[in-house]
C-alpha cells in the first residue's frame, strides 16, 4: 500500500469515526426527528430463498431478520466487535444457569406485540422451539439437539413437543429450557434467526414466500423472489431495547432482485439503489475505490476461503499430498484474485484472525512462523514425489461465480505444477455447496467458504472437521474433507466442556487443536476476506456489526 492510499484510508476512517461519534453525541430522539423517513432501496442478483426465519440459512436474509424478528436473547446492534455481544431481547435478562449448567429460566418481557397485533406470550416461545424441529430447520440437529426432548423431535418432527425441554409458566411469564448437558454456546445458538420467536399459530411447514409476523421494528409485506421483497414499519412496535431491537430510521426497505453485479454497481453509482448485497465485481473495485471512496466501507469478516481436500480419495488420502498443496499455494496470488491486500489477508490456519481461540501461526510457508510469507514449491514437489502420486488425475470443483472459478483455476494450475493431471470444473453456485458435501459425487478437492454463525471456535473447527459433521452419501455433510480423527474429536469435546466453566482455558486448547488440524491438513486455508459495502451517497450512519454485518435500522437516507 502506498502513502496516498494510506492517507485516503485514514481519511475514510476518520469520516466514519466522526459520523459514529456524531451519533453518540446527539440524542437518538434528535436524530430520529431529523432523519426519520424515506425508503431504503437494496439490490441483489437473486433472492435468498424462503422467507421463513426458521429455515432460511443465508446472510442475505439474516441481515434483514435482525429488524424483523427477535429471540429470547440477541446480538447487540452495534459496531464491530460490539455486534457480537449478547443482550437480552424478548427476555428481560440473560439468566444464570442452574441445575449444573443445564437449566435456564427466561422471564419474558410484557407488552410486546407481533406485527399482526397479537400479544407475545410464553406459548409462542414454546411453539417456536417446537417449530424449529417441525420445519426441519437446517440447524435443528446441530444447534438445538442439546435441548431435552430434541432427540424425539429429530426422529419424528411432526409430533415434536420438546417434552421436558421447553416449559412455559404463563402465570409467572417464564419459559424454562432444560439441556441434556451444559452448553457454553447455548446463548449464541438461540440468538440466531433460527431461534426467532414466532406466533404460536405460524404454519408448521416452510412458509416459502408468505411472510410470518414478527416482533421487530419492521415487517415483511410482499415477497416475490423474481422481483422484490418489501419491508415496512411494524405498526405494533414499541422500542423496548435500543441494543437488542432499535427502532429504524427509514420507513420502508425495498429489496429488488435480478440485476447483474455490474448492474448493481451502476445502480448504486446512479443513486437508483442505496446498497448492493453482492460483492462488487473485481473489475469495478478500482473504480469504486477511487471515484466513490466515501461511499465504500471495508470491514473484516470472521470467515475464510479454503480448499477442502477429500481425505478418503486419492491423491488426497495421503497426508503428504495435502501438505504439499498447502506448501505450494501462493496465497498472495489468491488475495489478488479476491481484490488485493486491502480486501483479503493470506491465512494458513482455520480460525480467523480476531476469533476466539485464534493464535497466529503458519506452518506451510518458506519461513514457518506466525505469518505466511511465500510458497515453498520445492518442499511441495518433494512431498508429492515421496507420495508416489504424481501424474494422477485431479478435478477441482468450484462454483461458477467469478472469484470461485478463478480460485479453482489457480488451484488446478498449482496442482499441474506439482505434476498432477489437473482440471477445474465450475458448477452452478446454487448447487455447488451441496454437491461438494455429498461423498457420492467423489469430489477430490473443491473451493468453499465458511462464515461464522456465532463467535466460538467450535463453529469452525468442530462444525467443519468433526466426525459428527461427516455424513457419507448426504448433501448435508459440512465436513467436506470427510476428516475424522478420534483423538482430535475427543479434544474438541473436552474443549467445549471446558468452555462452560473456563472459556479462556478452552480457547487456549482450541488454538492447539487448530494446529493439530493443520498438521493433518484436511484443507488448504487460503485467505480471510473483508467485506465491501458500497452505498449510495444518501445513506448515512453506516454501522457494521461483526455478527450480522450492516445494521440497517441504524442508517438513514434523509
Amino acid at each position, binding site marked *: 500500500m502506498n502513502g496516498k492510499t494510506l492517507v485516503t484510508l485514514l481519511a475514510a476512517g476518520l469520516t466514519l469515526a466522526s459520523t459514529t461519534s456524531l451519533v453518540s453525541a446527539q440524542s437518538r430522539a434528535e436524530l430520529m426527528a431529523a432523519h426519520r423517513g424515506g425508503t431504503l432501496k437494496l439490490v441483489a442478483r437473486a433472492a435468498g430463498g424462503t422467507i421463513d426465519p426458521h429455515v432460511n440459512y443465508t446472510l442475505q436474509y439474516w441481515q434483514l431478520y435482525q429488524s424483523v424478528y427477535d429471540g429470547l436473547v440477541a446480538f447487540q446492534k452495534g459496531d464491530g466487535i460490539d455486534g457480537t455481544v449478547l443482550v437480552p431481547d424478548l427476555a428481560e435478562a440473560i439468566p444464570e444457569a442452574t441445575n449444573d449448567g443445564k437449566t435456564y429460566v427466561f422471564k419474558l418481557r410484557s407488552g410486546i406485540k407481533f406485527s399482526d397485533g397479537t400479544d407475545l406470550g410464553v406459548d409462542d416461545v414454546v411453539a417456536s422451539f417446537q417449530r424449529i424441529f417441525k420445519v426441519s430447520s437446517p440447524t435443528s440437529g446441530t444447534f438445538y439437539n442439546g435441548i431435552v426432548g430434541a432427540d424425539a423431535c429429530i426422529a419424528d418432527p411432526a409430533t415434536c413437543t420438546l417434552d421436558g425441554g421447553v416449559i412455559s409458566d404463563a402465570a409467572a411469564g417464564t419459559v424454562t429450557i432444560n439441556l441434556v448437558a451444559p452448553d457454553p454456546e447455548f446463548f449464541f445458538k438461540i440468538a440466531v434467526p433460527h431461534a426467532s420467536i414466532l406466533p404460536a399459530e405460524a404454519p408448521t411447514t416452510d412458509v416459502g414466500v408468505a411472510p410470518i409476523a414478527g416482533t421487530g421494528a419492521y415487517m415483511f409485506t410482499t415477497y416475490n423472489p423474481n422481483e422484490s421483497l418489501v419491508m415496512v414499519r411494524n405498526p405494533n412496535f414499541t422500542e423496548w431495547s435500543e441494543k437488542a431491537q432499535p427502532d429504524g430510521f427509514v420507513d420502508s426497505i425495498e429489496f429488488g432482485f435480478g440485476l447483474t453485479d455490474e448492474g448493481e454497481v451502476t445502480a448504486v453509482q446512479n443513486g437508483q439503489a442505496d446498497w448492493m448485497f453482492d460483492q462488487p465485481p473485481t473489475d*469495478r473495485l478500482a473504480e469504486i475505490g*477511487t471515484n466513490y*471512496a466515501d461511499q465504500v466501507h471495508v470491514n473484516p469478516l470472521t470467515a475464510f476461503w479454503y480448499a477442502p481436500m477429500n481425505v478418503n480419495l486419492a491423491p488426497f488420502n495421503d497426508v503428504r499430498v495435502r501438505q504439499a498443496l498447502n506448501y505450494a499455494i501462493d496465497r498472495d496470488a489468491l488475495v*489478488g484474485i479476491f481484490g*488485493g491486500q486491502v480486501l483479503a489477508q493470506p491465512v494458513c490456519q482455520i480460525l480467523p484472525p480476531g476469533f476466539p481461540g485464534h493464535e497466529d501461526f503458519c506452518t506451510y510457508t518458506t519461513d514457518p512462523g506466525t505469518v505466511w510469507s511465500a510458497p515453498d514449491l520445492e518442499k511441495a514437489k518433494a512431498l508429492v514425489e515421496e507420495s508416489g502420486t504424481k501424474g494422477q488425475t485431479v478435478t477441482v470443483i468450484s462454483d461458477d461465480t467469478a472469484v470461485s472459478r478463478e480460485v479453482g483455476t489457480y488451484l488446478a494450475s498449482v496442482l499441474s505444477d506439482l505434476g498432477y493431471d489437473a*482440471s477445474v470444473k465450475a458448477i452452478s453456485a446454487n448447487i455447488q455447496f451441496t454437491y461438494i458435501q455429498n461423498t457420492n459425487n467423489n469430489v477430490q478437492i473443491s473451493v468453499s467458504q465458511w462464515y461464522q454463525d456465532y463467535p466460538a471456535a467450535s463453529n469452525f473447527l468442530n462444525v467443519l472437521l468433526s466426525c459428527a459433521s461427516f455424513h457419507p452419501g448426504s448433501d448435508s455433510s459440512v465436513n467436506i474433507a470427510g476428516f475424522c480423527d478420534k483423538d482430535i474429536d475427543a479434544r474438541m469435546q473436552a474443549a467445549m466442556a471446558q468452555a462452560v466453566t473456563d472459556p479462556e482455558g478452552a480457547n487456549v486448547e482450541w488454538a492447539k487443536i487448530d494446529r493439530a488440524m493443520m498438521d493433518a491438513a484436511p484443507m488448504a486455508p487460503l485467505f480471510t476476506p473483508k467485506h465491501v459495502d458500497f452505498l449510495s451517497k444518501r445513506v448515512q450512519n453506516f454501522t457494521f456489526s461483526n455478527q450480522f454485518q450492516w445494521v440497517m435500522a441504524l442508517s438513514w437516507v434523509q
Partner: protein
Amino acid sequence: MTDAAPASSEMPAAVPENKDGRGPWATALRRLRRSRAAIVSALILALIVLACALAPLYAGLAGSDPFRSNLGGKIMVEGKRVPVMQPSTTGLGLGVTPIGPTWGTAYMLGADTQGRDVAARLLYGGRNSLFIAASATAICLVLAAFVGIVAGFAGGVVDMVLSRILDVLWAFPVYLLAISLSIVLLNSSFTLGPVTITSGSLILPIGIIGVIYVPYVARPVRSKVLTLRQSEFVLASIGLGMPVSRILTRDILPNVIPTLIVFVPILLALSIVTESALSFLSIGVQPPDASWGTIIQDGQSLLYSRPTVALAPGIAIVLTVLALNVLGDCLRDALDPRFKLG
C-alpha cells in the same frame, strides 16, 4: 442406352462441361480465382490458420505458458519490470487489474484474470476452435451424405424412417439440443465400447456439434438424390444391371459432392460459433484447454477494465466466420453451372 452408361460413370452428368472445354471443377476453380471476395476471404482464413498453427512459436518468444496461472509474475515493459497483476494504487487501493496490451512480444494483448498471456491463449484457443470446427464439419458431412443418399436412393420405408429421425432432430432448437447433450455428456466420462472419453476431451464438443447439424445437410442431399434417382443416366445404370454400390459411388456421389462442398464453409462457420457458445457456457472446451469461447468467458469478468480479453477472441470469431461465409457464397456461385462469369 448403351452410350449413356459409360458417360455417367466417367463424369458428373449434372455438372456439364463448359463451352471452353474445361471440366466442372476447373471451371469452378477459375471462377473462384477471378473473385476478389473469394481471394480476400481465403487469405484472411489462411492468415488465421497460419497464426494459430504458430502458437507455440509465439508462446516461446513471449516466454509465457498459456495454460498456467502467472498471478505473481513480472515482465519487462519499456525496460521496466512490472507485475502482470497490478494492484490499484489510487483511492482506497481496491482491486487488482491484469496488465493491459503491451503491443510488444510478451503479453501483446495483455493478461487475463489468471495472469496468462491473452495473445498466446488466443492462438492456442484458435487451434482448438478451428480443429473442433473442421472435425465436426467432416463428421457432419459424412453422416449427412450417408443418410441423405441412402434415404433418397432407397426410398420407401427406409426413406420414411430416416426422414422421420431427421425430423425429430430438426424439431429441437439447435442450441437447446447442443446444450442438453453437452450437459449430459460433460457431467461424467462417456464410454463407447472399449473407448472411454473423459469429460474434458475435445471429442465431446466435436461429436455433439457434428451430430446436431446433420439434418440441415442431409435434407438437401436427400432432395438432390431423389432427383438424381430419376435422371436418365441413373435409370440407364439400373437398367444395365449395375450394382447399387457402383451406382451410388459413380453416379450419385459425384453429383452430391458439389452440394456438400458448398456446405463446408457454412458448416465450419456454424461450428465455430456453436463451439464458442458452448465453451462460453462452460459446456464446451474444458479448462485448462482454451478456445475462443472460453477466452470470451474469461474476459467476461474484465469487460469493464480489460475489454481486450473478450474482444480479441470475439474479433477472431467474427473475422473467421465472415470470411467463411463470403467464401461459402463464392463457392456456391462457382459451383453453380448456371452462373455466368462477368
